[in-house]
């Protein structure tokens, strides 16, 4: 990042190469929208480049870039909520029911690629219905694997709040995936 700040030609592409996967994955999982996530992830790197001289030396770069990504994702979620362009809980329940029926009906080759993809899609949708402040903490912890201290820095909240948010988010996720887990567990 120091090399990017002094405008070294090859430093920024190297930075993008290193972090593009993590940033895209984070934003995709928070938004559950692949196309929009790609645009937003690009915007994250554009912001990094624009504000490269504001980067505080000594702080962890991943924390800084995840903070930018989390803020942009939050803005996008709020924009969608304002536009009411977000699928409802009813829609999620419908999706989960469909997945459960599909899982129950399939007697052979349960581990086929298609079923696995369907399951992953259902989990992705379930995560996307967790309220924003819990969702961000959940994705940073259980998908990106960030330590609690770093999540606290990224979200700008105390460590205790991070723990309680993640705890609540996990409970919500378990509750939302309940029908899927029960059926999958029975069969």
């Amino acid at each position, binding site marked *: 990042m120091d090399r990017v700040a002094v405008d070294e030609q090859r430093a920024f592409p190297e930075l993008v190469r290193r972090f593009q996967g993590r940033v895209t*994955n984070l934003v995709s999982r928070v938004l559950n929208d692949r196309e929009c*996530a*790609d645009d937003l*992830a690009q915007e994250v790197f*554009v912001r990094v480049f624009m504000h490269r001289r504001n980067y505080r030396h000594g702080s962890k770069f991943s924390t800084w870039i995840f903070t930018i990504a989390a803020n942009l994702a939050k803005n996008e979620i709020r924009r969608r909520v304002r536009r009411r362009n977000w699928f409802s809980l009813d829609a999620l329940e419908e999706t989960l029911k469909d997945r459960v029926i599909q899982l129950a009906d399939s007697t052979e080759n349960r581990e086929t690629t298609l079923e696995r993809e369907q399951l992953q899609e259902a989990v992705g949708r379930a995560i996307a219905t967790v309220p924003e402040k819990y969702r961000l903490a959940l994705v940073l912890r259980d*998908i990106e694997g960030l330590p609690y201290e770093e999540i606290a820095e990224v979200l700008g909240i105390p460590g205790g709040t991070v723990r309680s948010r993640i705890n609540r988010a996990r409970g919500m*996720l378990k509750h939302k995936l309940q029908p899927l*887990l029960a059926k999958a567990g029975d069969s």
Partner: protein
Amino acid sequence: MICNRARRLFGVCWDDELTQAERDGLEGHLASCPQCRTEYDKFSQALELTAALPRIEASADFMDRVLVRSRRATTAPDIVREAGMRWVPVAVAAAGAVLVVVAMFVGPNLQWKAPASSQAPQIVKVGGPQEPRLTPKSNAKSGERRPEARRGSAESLFDPDKNVEFVLGSAAVSGGRVKRDPEGQRPIITF
């Protein structure tokens, strides 16, 4: 350990942050409580599914698009800043030059016009037995005759029914008739 306490430790257990005493207590409880055991299984299953979600990779042209957007995002402000800096001294110099020119050519006229706008010019009645010098009008609106003047009272500036001549210090007049006063020094404008 009671069920509520055990369930609160599910997350801590998943993060592997239990103390040895907590671990022993939770394991003992799960061994003896099938409901909590089922709940823990569902809890861990949900988190396993979440953690097992495939990583979403950036698109193939991600890098190119980021570089194009970054270039555009950073170039634009630079252009604006340079353009602004380049034009500021020129604009200031031009504005200064215009002010000097205006002061040179319009300044004297402004000096002449300034009293005319706030005060009426000195009026001298020519041809009468008296030549009353008029004090500046302060409240009279243009085109409006004062009632006193209409009645020809003592306060009246002049008789509205008779011709009045205004003698000005210096003037450029279009229309009307101009002649010299008896001393031949000042022009007399007749309306």
